[in-house]
Structures are given as C-alpha cells and as structure tokens.
C-alpha cells in the first residue's frame, strides 16, 4: 500500500485535494449552508489591499482628472459661461415679466377703485429733445385716447396727453418746464399751481407767505385746470421757505417720473374727495356755544337745548360752515351733486338769490 501511495503520490494528493473540495462543495449544496470561515479568510486577506488600492486609485484619478487631463476643460468652461449668460438673461426676462405683472396688478386694483374711467398704457419711449420731458405711450386714438387728458399712476399724476396718434400718444410730463397743474394743499386747503422745472423736482407757486406749509405735506390736484380730476396725489412738499410775494415751495412729484413703465390714461375724469380727508369722528373739535346760565340749585342741570339736526349730522358753527351749507343748498336746488361734475362741466350758480348791497349815496361836494 505504501509503495502504491509512494508511486502515485502526485495522483494521491490530487485525489485527496479534489475529494476534499468535492465533499466541501457537496456539503454546501446539500445543507444549503455557506462555509463562512473560508470566505472570511479570503475577504479579510483581500479587502485591506483593495481599500488601499481604491484609495490610491481615487487619489490618482482625482489628480489626473483635476490637474492633468484638462483637455476640453476650456471648451466646457466656455460652454458653461455661455449657458450661464443665457440663463442670466432668461432669469432677468422672467424677473421683468414678474415685475410687470405685479405693476399691472397694482394698476388694475387702482383702476378698479378710482371713479375715473382709465385705460392702461405702457411707456414705449421718451422724447428726443433732452430739454423736454415727454414720453410716448403705446395707446393712441385707436384706443380712445384724446388730447388733453390726464395720465396718472397709483403713486401720482404723470402728465397730460399732448398729441395723439393712431397707435401712440405723446405725454407732457409734469416735470417739464412748460407744465402746470392746479393743486391744493392737504392741510390748509390752499390752492396753488404746481409747475415743472425741467428736473426731477417741481415748484409750487402762489401759496401766500402766511400759510403754514411744511415738508412732507401732500399736495393733491384741485381739478381747476380741467385736466386732472380733483383728489389725485400730485406731490409732496420737499422744502418751503418764505419768498417775496409768495412762498418758495419745492415739490417732489408723487409718481416716479424717471421710472415710468405702465400708466393709466384718464379717458373720463371724475372728481373725488381728497384721499386723506378725515372722517367726522376724527375732525378737530369745534367751539361749542356758551353754556347756559347757572341754575340756582347747582345740582339741578339746565335742560339741553334742542339743536336742529343737520343732514350730515352736525350743526354749522362757523361762517365757513354756514357758507358751505348755503352752497350745498344752492347746489341741491339746481340739481348739482358736488364731486360728480366732470372737468369742464358747468358749475352751479352760487350767486342765485344774492342781492348786491345798496349803493351808498355819493357825498355831496361842499359848496
């Protein structure tokens, strides 16, 4: 036996090796179990080396791709820059569209709330003369724009339509030196004229020196020029100082005249009250009539005098109130409703029933 094994030593070892592995294989197949130990040995022996090789590969690959193999990087960079520029333009375009949509939304809300009939128009250009302040609108006679109508924004008045073309119109902006607007001061209700100066600020003329005007006071259209409906914001007082005959007042126009994009053309203007007119509850207190004489018994209060109830809830106390009440009565008699007359319409006759005072006899010359 020993001789046989020694003679066929190689074949014996081969048979043992194959047989052992077949047993191993058969055991795994039959029992459906894994020989975990051998697998752990193999994986444990290979994995650390694999980790080192992987790390080295990552390092080399990173160096290669980031520092050596830069072929096409310039072209890719150029392409990416072009893409970035295109995307920036797209982004800007979308932002503009979004801004325009927001502005149109504000305009639509204002258009809905204002009593005047208006038309939305876009500013498509400015005048070629650097000394004049005019803009072109994209709406013309074809859209119902008439010469002489007002152009406004929710922030304030812009100007008046000077010339109308079939598909566009020319607007003289209030900052132009030839422009003038009838205005009224917010607090004192003093009327004046807002005049353009050719620059961003305007001038307010004909405000007497004795009137108290301060920076920040708002100025509204008075409607007297028959172009701008009453009650629209014209500007805000920037500076005011006494002048020779009248105050020197500088106004900052309410509308952003240097950034006009969408405007409203007042096709049919309607006067309105000043927006900041205070309600009765917050009106300044008026002087009450003198209290009744004291009663003999101090605990016994005098009866409250019966006052005639006015239609608007208060009794005129001052001469101005009485005059206003008379004007209202005259307007009512002639069928006129204050605040609804169109610019250029005939006002009520406030002298109806008024008789001039008797003429004094001239003094006789002494003989």
């Amino acid at each position, binding site marked *: 036996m020993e001789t046989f094994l020694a003679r066929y030593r190689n074949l014996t*070892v081969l048979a043992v090796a*194959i047989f052992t592995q*077949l047993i191993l294989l058969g055991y795994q197949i039959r029992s459906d179990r894994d020989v975990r130990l051998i697998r752990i040995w193999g994986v444990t022996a290979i994995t650390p080396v694999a980790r080192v090789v992987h790390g080295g590969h990552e390092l080399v690959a990173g160096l290669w791709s980031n520092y050596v193999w830069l072929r096409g990087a310039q072209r890719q960079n150029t392409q990416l820059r072009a893409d970035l520029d295109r995307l920036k333009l797209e982004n800007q375009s979308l932002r503009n569209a979004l801004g325009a949509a927001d502005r149109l939304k504000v305009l639509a809300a204002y258009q809905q709330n204002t009593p005047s009939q208006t038309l939305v128009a876009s500013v498509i250009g400015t005048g070629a003369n650097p000394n004049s302040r005019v803009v072109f609108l994209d709406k013309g006679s074809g859209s119902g724009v008439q010469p002489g109508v007002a152009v406004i924004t929710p922030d304030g008045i812009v100007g008046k339509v000077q010339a109308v073309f079939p598909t566009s119109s020319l607007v003289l902006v209030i900052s132009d030196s030839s422009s003038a607007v009838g205005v009224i001061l917010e607090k004192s209700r003093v009327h004046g004229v807002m005049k353009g100066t050719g620059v961003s600020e305007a001038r307010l003329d004909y405000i007497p020196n004795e009137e108290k005007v301060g920076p920040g006071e708002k100025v509204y259209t008075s409607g007297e020029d028959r172009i701008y409906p009453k009650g629209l914001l014209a500007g805000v007082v920037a500076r005011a100082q006494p002048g020779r005959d009248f105050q020197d007042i500088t106004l900052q126009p309410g509308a952003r005249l240097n950034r006009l994009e969408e405007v409203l053309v007042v096709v049919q203007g309607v006067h309105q009250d000043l927006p900041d007119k205070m309600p009765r509850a917050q009106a300044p207190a008026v002087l009450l009539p003198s209290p009744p004489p004291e009663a003999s018994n101090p605990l016994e209060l005098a009866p409250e005098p019966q006052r005639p109830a006015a239609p608007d809830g208060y009794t005129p106390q001052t001469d101005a109130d009485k005059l206003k009440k008379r004007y209202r009565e005259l307007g009512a008699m002639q069928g006129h409703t204050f605040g609804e007359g169109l610019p250029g319409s005939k006002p009520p006759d406030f002298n109806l029933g008024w008789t001039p005072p008797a003429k004094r006899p001239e003094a006789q010359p002494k003989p």
Partner: protein
Amino acid sequence: MQASVKQLIEADINRLHPWIAVAAVVAALLLQAYLPLLPVVSSYANMADLPLLVAIYLALLRRNPVAGLLIGMGIGLAQDSLSHGPIGLYGIIKTLVAYTCSSLTLVLAVESLGTRVILVCGFYVVHQGMFWLLERVLLGQAVDFAWQRTFLLAFINGSLALVLYRFLDRFRERT
C-alpha cells in the same frame, strides 16, 4: 526521456521569490474583483481570468505537480471566497488545471513564451468546460456551453498572458 527531462529541469530551474508569487496572486484576485468597477474597462474586465493566468504561470514555473495543485487549489478557493457561489467550484477546477500544467512541464519544454500562451488558450477552454460540467452536474444548473465565446475569450486570455508572463519573467530568479 527521463534523463532529458531531468536535465532540462535542472538546467532551467527558475523560481519566483515567494513574496513576488504571493503578490502576483493577490494582485490577480484584486484586479479581478476591482477592474469591473472601473468605468473605462468595466465592459471588458470580465473577459479576462487573471487568477487562472497566474495559477498556470506559477504551476508551469514550479514544475512540481503537488506544488502546482496546491497553488491552483489556493487560488481557486480564494477566488471562490470572493464570489457568491459555493466554495470549492473554482478550487476543484484550478486544482486540476494547475496539476495538469505542472505535470506537463515534466514531459514538455514549456519555457517558450509561445508554448505557454498556447497552453493558456487550451487550459482556458478546459477550465471553462469543467466549470460548465460542474455547474450542470453538481449545481444542477442547465446552462449552455458558448463555444464561440469560449474560444474567443481563450484567444484574448492567451494574448493577455503574453504580456503578463513577460512582465512576471522579469522577477524570476535564476538559480
């Protein structure tokens, strides 16, 4: 015949340093496991059987059937342990291949690079045939033997062996 073979063996005894042999085996296993992960060569990585090439090389170099079968068994079992299949499948195949290679060195002059490449091509086909047989017989998997693909891959592995063996020959120590 015996004398001539013995003379041949004694005249051309070459050996590889054990650490170089171990490194070659580990590198072959590592590359076989790692190359499919590289995007550039992932499509072609599975065409090569580097552990088989190294096993044949070492078996031919040792010229000892017992040492050859042990080398083949070790490489095969290591390859099994890194795969998801049952352990022993590649072990048996590579044991037989390496044993046969080592046995052939006793009767054939295999020092020529061309001879070794032809042996690689032939043993690759034998390797794949045995793998197919064991899969059908032991594992019961009904797989077809792709002859054309096998011969093509045998040629590819033979070409690869040409390069690999020339590289490994640089580390041989003439005694």
